[in-house]
């Protein structure tokens, strides 16, 4: 079974898109480096802002006929084929495929509201093609909307990026609770919280260190800690140049931190095989 990682948090600006895009690329490249028979990774952008689509494909003008919106609006039987038709090769790596977002996704939530089976409109077609990929990474929007629910229902592993600030960590339990609700309420037992990703960590700030120490000491959250990404200028410069962090500055502290996380996630893949 292919692992589907979803990066989710209802708080904006915590590094969901940065983490999703770089982790997706990282998995592809690590698998290729390990001479894997299949190193294809699919990145699905469910955020109508389309930041992940923009940086990985260099475009953001995706519309009604070439984006996730198209898949969600397709007839159920044609949805898998539509999904395949909408995939775009990333500028970063030919084995990284992207299902881009569209600003029309805003309206899609309203259009799909009340339609039976709407939350499964991503999970169902994805399940038909997921076997073609070594891993799938989903970037979600900063809210618990229908679109985020779709992402969670399609996923096997939820990863929660979080900034080391008081209010963000307070909201963590509600995010985990929401994921548990999806698992129980939608009878999706394969979904689990696989990790917390502390982003924008600044070791010079005492509050950050204090909160990280608290997190590590927490009996549940401490075990979920996947990694810590230091605050790094290279991240914003990489975005600006539509490049991955690994390509823009492989020696940066953020690159090194991300590649460690990628290594951990790739180890997860081996538990079920690729």
């Amino acid at each position, binding site marked *: 079974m292919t692992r589907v990682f979803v990066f989710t948090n209802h708080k904006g600006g915590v590094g969901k898109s940065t983490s999703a895009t770089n982790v997706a690329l990282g998995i592809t490249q690590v698998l290729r480096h390990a001479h*894997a028979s299949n190193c294809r990774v699919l990145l699905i952008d469910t955020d109508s802002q389309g930041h992940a689509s923009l940086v990985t494909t260099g475009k953001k003008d995706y519309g009604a006929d070439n984006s996730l919106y198209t898949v969600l609006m397709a007839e159920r039987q044609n949805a898998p084929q539509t999904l395949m038709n909408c995939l775009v090769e990333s500028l970063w790596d030919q084995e990284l495929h992207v299902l881009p977002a569209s600003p029309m996704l805003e309206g899609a939530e309203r259009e799909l509201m009340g339609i039976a089976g709407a939350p499964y409109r991503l999970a169902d077609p994805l399940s038909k093609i997921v076997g073609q990929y070594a891993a799938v990474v989903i970037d979600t929007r900063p809210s618990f909307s229908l679109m985020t629910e779709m992402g969670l229902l399609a996923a096997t592993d939820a990863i929660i990026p979080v900034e080391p600030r008081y209010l963000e960590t307070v909201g963590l339990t509600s995010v985990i609770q929401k994921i548990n609700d999806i698992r129980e309420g939608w009878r999706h037992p394969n979904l689990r919280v696989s990790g917390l990703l502390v982003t924008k960590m600044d070791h010079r700030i005492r509050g950050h260190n204090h909160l990280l120490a608290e997190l590590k000491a927490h009996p549940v959250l401490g075990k979920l800690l996947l990694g810590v990404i230091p605050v790094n200028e290279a991240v914003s410069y990489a975005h600006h140049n539509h490049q991955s962090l690994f390509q823009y500055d492989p020696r940066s502290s953020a690159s090194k931190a991300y590649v460690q996380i990628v290594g951990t996630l790739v180890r997860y893949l081996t538990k079920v095989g690729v």
Partner: protein
Amino acid sequence: MVKGTTNRIDDLLASVTGDLLGEVTQTFQNHTIRVERILLEMVRPDPVQPRRVLPESIHLRFHNSHVTPTQALRELVQLVQIAARQRGRPFNSVVELLPNTDDEREQETNTLLSPEEQLLLDLVNLAITIRDDGQVNPLTVVDVSQGVTRLFRIETGERRYWATWLLRDFIPNYTGDGMIPCILVPEKQSSIFRQAKENTARSGLTAVALARQAALLLLTVHGYEIPAYAVGNDFYRQALQLDLRSRREYTDAILSAMGGMKKGYFSEIKALLRLADEALEIADRHGIEEGKLRHVIAVAPELHAEIVRQIVDFNLTSRQVKELCEGDRMQTDEDDPLERLPAAALKIAKVTQSISSTSAQDLVRALLKQEGDAAIARARLQAMRKLLSEAERLLGTE
């Protein structure tokens, strides 16, 4: 070339694969043959597969992407509906083609099915088996994906592919999920010889399909590029210029893949590609044996289709075909071109020699099959009777 690859990235990745992954990297290096369930839309039949499942015209339209699999099957169903209506067996749903085991009269009529009716009936039977018992035997497919386009070319199992489409779109009570089990063969391990062995090991491979198969093997070992799109008969005819002698090292492999046939028979099979396009199509559709077709290639190409049609219509034996063709050839060779007799007159004269080998009942059935209407058939017989009376009168005067 992978975009953005630099030594620095390699160093970074090496730190992960070395330190973090260690021995687990072997888990990913699985390049063996494996079974996967693949979305039906990702699977495509091999356009140069010698064994045709669909009629030639639909086959070409499908592989030239003019029609989708569903549309191709709809065209086949419509074709069969017309043929069935002409034979007084109209049907609306393909499941109506299945024989009713309680009706003995219906079972008898099955022997008179046209090739298209038989094909559709076989596909429906296979589809029902898949629906009721599942697909036990997976297809063999080769991964021919390019970029984001995931595509798998069928090496063996095209009939199961079409039966699954038929089941999905034309047969009620389909409960599948649109996926099909496939044995996934890495492209490097794909083999035209394996495909040939699979083809020749199964029954029902026509002489024309065998000829295409022989051509494909010869072209492959001679280094010709096998296209990934539908090709006409001229592509296979290139093999007429080739032989086994120039690639002796492959002779055994080719003959073995062709079902262990002898060299002489291989040449005779290959020579069938000299048949005209229309004759090839009819011969393939009706599964005419090589023993009959070998005589046809000796006559002028413009007569091929007509002779093959007569083989089908009159169910001629090899001997009759030989006589028909040799007679035709002798006439062509010996007669002064100015005094050449019309081909139709020669054929009727030839038919008079085989009059004892047929019965009035058979003639009636053949006429009805040919004309599709009793009144027209009667008119044909009356015209024939008039012609024969006139001929007899002239014979008396000579």
